[in-house]
């Protein structure tokens, strides 16, 4: 970890690989630097394919560098469910940042559907944070639960939309708006952009007025920009900063604390699956029980009972497990 602490980029990269691979060495690596975690600003950027997320992230990074902030970028792309392979091409839009010593870019594949990417992306951000990067931008394509989980780990979530390809109604249906702390209408020079911004304003307003008045809630600003021509991107940063000021009043600590708990849950679940389930070779036993006519729920109860010894198990552990970790 000496290399890591002295600013060696290879050491940071390797630590992230350990997180990705669920390598045993990661635990010690994180312990060694954990007191340094928590200084960086974490911003998630998501949106439908073709909305211009990579271009926006690249432009935001450029502006942050002009403000003399160092930047880490984590670009998460889906793995193929059939082959497990992935094409990670977001760097292509970030060419100018490649040789900047104040920028570190890492591409990550989502690898399967068990939520491992949510755990690994938090780990990667922790490592970038501990390594000393000021701002961390986490970019994913907003298509599935796993991707939501990834950006939800950020302090502020930016949802990027553009006219046409990923329009407002689609976004509302898919629930993208509910995770948004800042809404960006990219490609503002394309026809339909103004309309999309109005639609978003309206739905944000409706949501704000129809909910309970028991506490002051954040109303996501709607920001228009054209990342391709580098115009209006400063307003996106301003949107993120305004959310940050809103969080400053103790809210950030509360939210981060809750996210830490979630991370513990993920690690527990993953280790249960790997360490206990895989190692003990339950498969044959389970097959025998299923063969005798037990339902999958009955078999699961028996398995969990044995794993957990005397700890009481709920009647439908499968359902509880799902609610807890997905």
């Amino acid at each position, binding site marked *: 970890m000496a290399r890591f602490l002295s600013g060696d980029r290879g050491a940071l990269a390797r630590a992230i*690989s350990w997180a990705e691979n669920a390598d045993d060495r990661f635990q010690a690596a994180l312990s060694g630097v954990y007191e340094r975690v928590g200084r960086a600003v974490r911003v998630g950027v998501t949106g439908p394919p073709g909305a211009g997320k990579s271009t926006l992230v690249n432009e935001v990074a450029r502006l942050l560098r002009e403000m003399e902030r160092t930047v880490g970028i984590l670009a998460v792309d889906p793995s193929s469910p059939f082959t497990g392979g992935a094409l990670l091409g977001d*760097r292509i839009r970030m060419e100018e940042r490649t040789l900047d010593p104040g920028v570190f870019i890492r591409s990550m*594949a989502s690898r399967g559907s068990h939520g491992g990417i949510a755990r690994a992306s938090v780990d990667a951000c922790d490592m970038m944070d501990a390594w000393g990067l000021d701002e961390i931008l986490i970019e994913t394509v907003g298509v599935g639960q796993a991707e939501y989980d990834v950006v939800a780990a950020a302090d502020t979530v930016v949802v990027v939309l553009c006219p046409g390809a990923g329009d407002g109604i689609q976004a509302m249906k898919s629930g993208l708006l509910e995770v948004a702390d800042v809404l960006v209408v990219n490609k503002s020079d394309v026809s339909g952009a103004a309309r999309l911004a109005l639609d978003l304003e309206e739905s944000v307003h409706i949501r704000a007025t129809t909910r309970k008045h028991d506490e002051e809630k954040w109303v996501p600003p709607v920001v228009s920009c054209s990342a391709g021509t580098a115009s209006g991107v400063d307003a996106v940063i301003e949107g993120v900063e305004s959310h940050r000021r809103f969080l400053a009043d103790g809210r950030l600590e509360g939210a981060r604390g809750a996210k830490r708990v979630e991370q513990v849950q993920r690690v527990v679940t993953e280790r249960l699956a790997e360490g206990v389930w895989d190692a003990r070779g339950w498969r044959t036993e389970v097959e025998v029980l299923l063969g005798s006519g037990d339902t999958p729920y009955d078999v699961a109860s028996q398995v969990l009972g044995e794993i957990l010894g005397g700890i009481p198990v709920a009647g439908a552990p499968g359902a509880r497990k799902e609610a807890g970790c997905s």
Partner: protein
Amino acid sequence: MTDRRIRVLVAKPGLDGHDRGAKTVASVLRDHGMEVIYTGLHKTPAMIAEIAVQEDVDVVGLSILSGAHMELFPRVRKELEQRGMAHVLLVGGGIIPREDIEALEGDGFTKLFGPGTNTDSIAEFIQTEMQQRWAKEGADA
């Protein structure tokens, strides 16, 4: 290790814009279960090596059709070494005459693939090579 996958950087050094081969190979490697990072066009040796570091790849594959391979390929190798990445599996392809293939294979490149190479055989070569390396790593550890 529970979920280790081969990470490959497919890179285009130099000024030529012929990316048909590089992109096709990238797609084929993905279909063989690898995680492939494609650099895009017109990258300098320093950029390629820096990306390899940040992405902590296991394999770097260079593609070039401009004839500048004897100049650029060894430079990429040097840049990788300077950044502590001498361990990566280094391969390349393009319009490369036989004697140049021999020269590069004696200079840090494990394998050069000439025109007309079957893309599946490239994937299989990488898989076999990485399995051997990981097995050795495991034995050493």
